[in-house]
Structures are given as C-alpha cells and as structure tokens.
C-alpha cells in the first residue's frame, strides 16, 4: 500500500513539474519569444522552419514559434481565469445552498439542474455566437454551465459535514453562519472541489480553443492556438508547420493538465 | 502422501503485507469431514480462499496438494478446471456468489455448460427439495437480489452439490440460516458424504456444528492452527487453553 502511494506521489510530482514548466513558459512568453509575434513581413511569407524562425512563418510572414509562445499565455491564462471564476462562484453557491438549505437551495439547485439539461458546447456556441465572438464572450459562454459542477460538489460536501460535532459546537458558541462557513466548512470542502477544478482544466482548454477555432473566441490578430490552426489550415499544403506546431502545443498542454488531474485524483483516491 | 485428497503443507497466505494464514498444515482424506473452528479474523475463511484459489490472495509460503497435484503453484486458469467438478465451494455470503441481477436459471445454465452438462431443471429442483426449498422451479425464475439470504444460501449449496465434487469447501455454510434449516443443511451434507464419499472441509465459528459433523477438528487463532485432532479428543481432552475457553463458551446444542 505504502509503495503504491509513493509511486502515485511521484506521478503527481512529475505532473506538477511539467505543468509548472508550461505555466512558466506562458508567463515569460514575452521574454522568450525571439521575434515579434505580430510583426508581418511580406518577404518572409510561409518560410520553412529555420534557425531564425524555429517553427517557420505563416501566411503573413509572422514567426510561428513566437506566436505559439504568446498563444500559450492566451490559452493558459484564459483557461485558468475561467476555471478559477467558475470555482469561486460554484463553491460560494454550493456552500450557501448546503449550509442554509431551504428555498434558496431549492431555487439555485433547480437552476443548476436546468443547466445540466443543456449540452455545454451547444450553449457555448450559441451564446458565444450571439455575443459576437471575443475571448470574453467565449469565457462567459463556457462559464454559464461550468459553475454548476463546482456548486453541486461543494453543496454535497457541505451537507455531509454540516452536522459534525465541531460545527454544532461552533454554533453553540454563537458563531455566525458566515464565520462557521469561512473557518470550518470552507477548509474542509476545499480539497475535493479544487481537485475537480484541476480535472476541468483540460476540457476547458479544449472548449476555449474550439470556440476560437470556430471564430467565436479570440479575435485576430491575437495569437491563440485554436485560431492559429484555423487560419493556417487553409494553406496547410504549402506550410504545414503553421498548423502542426500549434497543434502539437495544444496536445501537449492538454495532455499535461489531464495527466495532472488524473494523478492528483488517483493519489487522493488511494487514501 | 497419496492417501490424502487435500494436503496443506506449512501454508502461509496474505492479501497485502502481513500473512493472514500462518504456517498451517493439515490434510483431509476422501470422505472425511474436517471442521476448522475459529473466531472471525482467525484466518479460517482465508484458508478456504487459498484452497480454491479464485480470489486475489498471495500464497507466501508452503503448498497445497490436491490428490498428487500441487495446486498452489498452478495459475488461476489451471486451477479453475478443478472448480465445480473436483472442488466445490459453498461461500460465506452465497447471495453475492451469484450475479445479483441475472435470473438464476440462466446462471445455472451457464454453470452447467461450463461442465459440459445440459441444463436440467428437474435435477436442480430435486436438489433444492432435499435441502428444504419446495418451489425450486419458481425460484429459478428469480434474480438473487429478489430472494432472502436463506434462500440464496440453499441455492448456492445446491449449485455446489450439482457437480458432485470430491471435495466440498464450506465457508460458514449455515450462518444465514435459522436453526431448523441449518439442521437440514447439516443433515444433507452428511448424506452427501454417506452416499458419494465426498470429503468436506467446513469452516465455522460454531463449535456445535463442528461437533455434530466433524471427524477431525482444527482450531484456528490469529492465522495459526493451534490445535488439531479428532472430535472426541478436542472436546474431551483439549490441550490448548484457548480451545478450552471456546468449548466453555459454546451454548449447548442439541445433539
């Protein structure tokens, strides 16, 4: 048992290291990029990869390597932001519902149920489409349904601990509901909900880049992997590198974060 | 060596780090009834599992012989060939030894097909009647989850007896039954031994049943076989202090 646990811990550490590297690359992409990702150059159109342009150049002569780096920032930052906001909304709603119950709980949970009745990507496409594109619109579109999973989880964990003796004791001491939630409930439900957030990163990334690919996410010329692939697929025959490198970056990033989610989940389940 | 049907030699077995069965040796000859008595956690059920070999259990030392074959070193697949026709098992929790959501008739059909037998409802019904289940055919149309624990137990016993094994392993075979039915099952087991010469290894926490059935009794505690001998000797002149305590604690069962 202990051996298995140690092995799982090692997996978590490896995953964290890889994820950290990606986050660092994204954070310092401005410094790391060898060329200006937005500088067009009509003389360097669709150049094959070379020492100066590691991943080649695209249809407008922009450096694909630099754009992939800057794109990492767009994708990772917007994913983190979206997951974090959904997480916060979800945990607050879930905790309030679970702790107070009653009519507020009924209404909010009915809304969450309803959200489940809509397929997420269908809603996202319709909403992002109506909002007329843009990264903000895409994030709202995905967030509309996303908070519900966090809320459900937070609620069920709150329900399972709210009658524990230490909560009752805190009540008897005359602590207010808010105090109890902040000092006793929140710390105890944080971990499972955080792990859920971690496992959502990969799907969210797929969602954001999918919307961008459809032209419903980031607006050109901003660099984002989905939209880069979408733009460059028109001339994939002539300059496959302009598609293949952002594609590889997308896959690697999603794989790393999915692996991280899996590893943490397994580690926790082994307890 | 070969006079034994089953011979256990210095057997140790574990699920994880610590051995649950420790250095156990005993044997059973054809037609003999051996009862292993111990409290829960003594390792007696694990001993049964080690013998049938169908559970995730690691044999960490010693060996098990069936006839002249060392079965403890065989793969699960090879050992499975013995199951049913050579070695039968009446498990501790018979209800969950069947697929809870499939009709019993289908499960009997598959079990019989596994031994190259055609499905024979009359035969199963006959067996069920012997152990006091009257509407056998109707019961076979049910799924195990719809039946009581006692019913499932009797059906599991019938399923084990169906293939006339040379060795029948019983893991607390009567624990889910009321006294009358338990008595019927014990009688039926004795009859099987009588008519077919089936050897029975029965594991129980119930000394009364052991006294009524067994030729030889073994006492298990903390994974070890601390005393072994014929039934009269165990009851009349127990050597071990723990055995004496067990005998004292038994409520007298009508003999």
């Amino acid at each position, binding site marked *: 048992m202990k051996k298995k646990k140690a092995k799982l811990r090692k997996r978590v550490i490896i995953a964290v290291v890889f994820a950290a590297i990606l986050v660092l690359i994204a954070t310092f992409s401005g410094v790391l990029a060898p060329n200006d990702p937005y500088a067009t150059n009509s003389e360097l159109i669709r150049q094959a990869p070379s020492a100066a342009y590691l991943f080649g150049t695209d249809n407008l002569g922009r450096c694909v390597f630099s754009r992939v780096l800057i794109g990492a920032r767009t994708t990772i930052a917007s994913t983190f932001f979206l997951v974090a906001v959904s997480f916060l909304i979800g945990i607050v709603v879930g905790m309030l519902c679970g702790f107070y119950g009653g009519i507020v709980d009924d209404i909010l949970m009915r809304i969450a149920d309803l959200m489940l009745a809509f397929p997420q990507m*269908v809603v996202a496409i319709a909403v992002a489409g109506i909002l007329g594109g843009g990264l903000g619109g895409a994030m709202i579109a995905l967030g509309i349904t996303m908070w519900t999973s966090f809320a459900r989880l937070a609620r069920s964990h709150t329900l399972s601990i709210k009658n524990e003796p230490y909560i009752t004791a805190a009540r008897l001491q005359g602590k207010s509901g808010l105090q109890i939630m902040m000092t006793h409930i929140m710390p105890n439900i944080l971990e499972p909900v955080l792990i859920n957030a971690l496992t959502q990163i990969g799907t969210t990334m797929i969602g954001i880049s999918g919307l961008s*690919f*459809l032209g419903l996410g980031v607006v050109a010329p901003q660099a984002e992997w989905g939209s880069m692939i979408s733009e460059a697929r028109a001339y994939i025959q002539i300059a496959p590198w302009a598609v293949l490198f952002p594609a590889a970056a997308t896959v690697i990033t*999603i*794989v790393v974060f999915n692996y991280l989610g899996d590893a943490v989940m397994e580690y926790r389940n082994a307890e | 060596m070969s006079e034994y049907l089953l011979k256990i030699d210095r057997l140790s077995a574990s699920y994880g780090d610590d051995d649950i069965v420790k250095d156990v040796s005993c044997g059973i000859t054809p037609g003999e009834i051996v009862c292993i008595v111990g409290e829960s956690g003594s390792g007696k059920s694990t001993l049964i599992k080690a013998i049938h070999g169908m559970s995730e259990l690691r044999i960490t030392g010693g060996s098990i012989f069936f006839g002249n074959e060392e079965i403890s070193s065989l793969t699960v697949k090879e050992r499975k060939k013995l199951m049913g026709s050579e070695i039968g098992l009446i498990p501790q929790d018979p209800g969950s*030894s069947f697929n809870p959501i499939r009709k019993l008739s289908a499960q009997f059909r598959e079990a019989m097909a596994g031994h190259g037998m055609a499905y024979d409802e009359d035969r199963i019904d006959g067996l069920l009647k012997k152990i006091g289940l009257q509407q056998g055919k109707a019961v076979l149309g049910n799924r195990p989850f719809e039946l009581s624990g006692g019913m499932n137990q009797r059906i599991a016993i019938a399923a084990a007896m169906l293939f006339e094994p040379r060795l029948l392993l019983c893991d607390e075979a009567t624990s889910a039954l009321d006294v009358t039915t338990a008595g019927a099952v014990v009688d039926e087991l004795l009859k099987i031994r009588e008519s077919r010469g089936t050897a029975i290894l029965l594991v129980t926490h119930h000394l009364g049943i052991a006294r009524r059935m067994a030729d030889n009794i073994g006492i298990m505690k903390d994974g070890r076989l601390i005393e072994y001998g014929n039934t009269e000797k165990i009851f009349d002149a127990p050597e071990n202090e723990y055995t004496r305590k067990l005998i004292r604690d038994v409520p007298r069962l009508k003999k």
Partner: protein
Amino acid sequence: MKKQIAKRIAELIVILIVLSFLTFLLMYLAPGDPAEKRLSSQGVAVTKEVLQAEQERMGLLRPFMVRYGEWFGGILHGDWGVSFKDDMPVAPKLAAGLKNTTILALASLIISLIVSVPLGIASAVKKNSILDHIVRLLSFIGNALPNFLISVLLMYFLCIQLNLFPVVASGSVQGLCLPALSLAIPMAGRFTRQIRTETMEQLEQEYVTGLRTRGVREKDILIHNVFHNASGHIFTIVALQIGTLMGGSVVIETIFRWPGIGKLVMDSINARDYPTIMGFVLIMGTIYVVINFISDVLYHVLDPRV
C-alpha cells in the same frame, strides 16, 4: 416503476418548456439588432425610418411575452418561424440539417463503440499487461485531442499526403469517413477509459469469484455477467457524451462542410439569424434531455435493484 416514469415524464415536459423559454430569452437579450444586420447585409442604407419599418415587419417591436408565446405556439404546430436571413421557413432547414447530423453522429458513435467496448473490456481483464498500458496511453491521448485538431490532422495526412479521401465531405458516404472519424477518436478515448473502469469495478465484485468457483466459463462470465451488469452504466456514459458530440459536430461539420445542423447554425450565427439559432438550441437541448431520460429508464430496466 410506471409511476416513477410518469413523474419523470412530467418533469421532462417542464424542463423542455423552461428550456424553450431560456432559449428565447437568450436571443432576446442578445446584443445587436437583427433588423439592422439584415438591412446592411442587403446593402440598404440604414435610416431610422427604414430600420423601424424593418423591425416592425420582423415582429421585433412587440412585447417579450407575446413574442415568446407566438414562437412557442408556432413550434408546437410545426411552425418554427422564418429565417431572418432569407425569409424561408426555419423548420424544413433544421429538419434537413438534423437528418445529416444524425447520420454523422450515429456513424461516429458506432465507430467509437466498436473500438472502445472490446478494448475497454480487454484492458480491464488484462489489467497492467502491455495491452492495458497501450490502450490506456492511446485512450488518454485520444481524450486529450480536440476534434477540430484531429480533423485538421486527418485532412492533412489522409487527404493531402496520402490522397485517400476527398477534402470536402458534402454528404457522400465516402465523405462521411473523415468527419465521423474526427468525432469518434476523442469519444473512443473517453469510452475506453470509462468502460475499462466500469469493467474493472464489475470484475472486483464477489459474484465473479462465485461464478469462477462453480467453473463457469470465462467467456460466459465476461459477456453474460460482467458486460451485462456494466451495460446500464455504459448507456449512461454514452448518453452523457451526446452533449459533447453535438458541440463537436458543429465544429466538424463546419470544417468538412457537412450539410448538417451544426454547419447551418454557424452560418446562422454569422448572419444573426435568430430563429434558426433558437431552433438549433431547442432541438439539441430536447434531444439531449430525452436521450438522458431514456438512458435513465434503460438503466433501471437493466439493473432493477436501483
């Protein structure tokens, strides 16, 4: 059981009505004026009078609830409104698109199940074997691939490099292969993982040991017992994937120009053709809710304990 189903159907109807209301609300709140969009796309100079006349004509000036009631009443009678883009009725367009999307969705579902059911079961049975490791790796990667990316890669390698398929699908059987594959690959990845987990859970159940001790053949244990018991869960897994499949088909249909409802909705989004978008959301939501309802019922039929 019957009472429960009746109750669930009543719930279902309420959910569908709310669904239609939310859909309508969404379009109502949407920024941008369809009348203005329409006029400018026709090249009409947008003056205040012209705009107001157009809004009047398109019925945009009446109160919200009146418009919702009319729209919803129309839907019940098969009249889903007329397109803002070309004044053609929406319902036949949606129906034609839905037919093609269903073909695509079924093809991809069948492909992914044909792959994932045997692989999922085999890797659960041969847990920690080389096969299991390969299957797990492949399904993990498949699951991490966005389907737009798969479709672009498939197009590049199979159409352009190897010249095996036409680039534009446009409804032919041959053209169905790539879009169906693009949808099937990530789905197969997810199914395989879930079926593996589900099978492993069943294999750990005590009844498997019980059947083995009776000498039941492994084949019978696996197919008639383990898979039988897992199938309820597998239906649920598939039903839940339908939502992802719907979103994915919008992307894939757009890429391959497959004339399905997803391509229709992307064209409508670009034209701010609200009646078509509303129809799309309503249809997809309804299908999703109904399929999940059916899978719930099936689950109870297959495992009557719950």
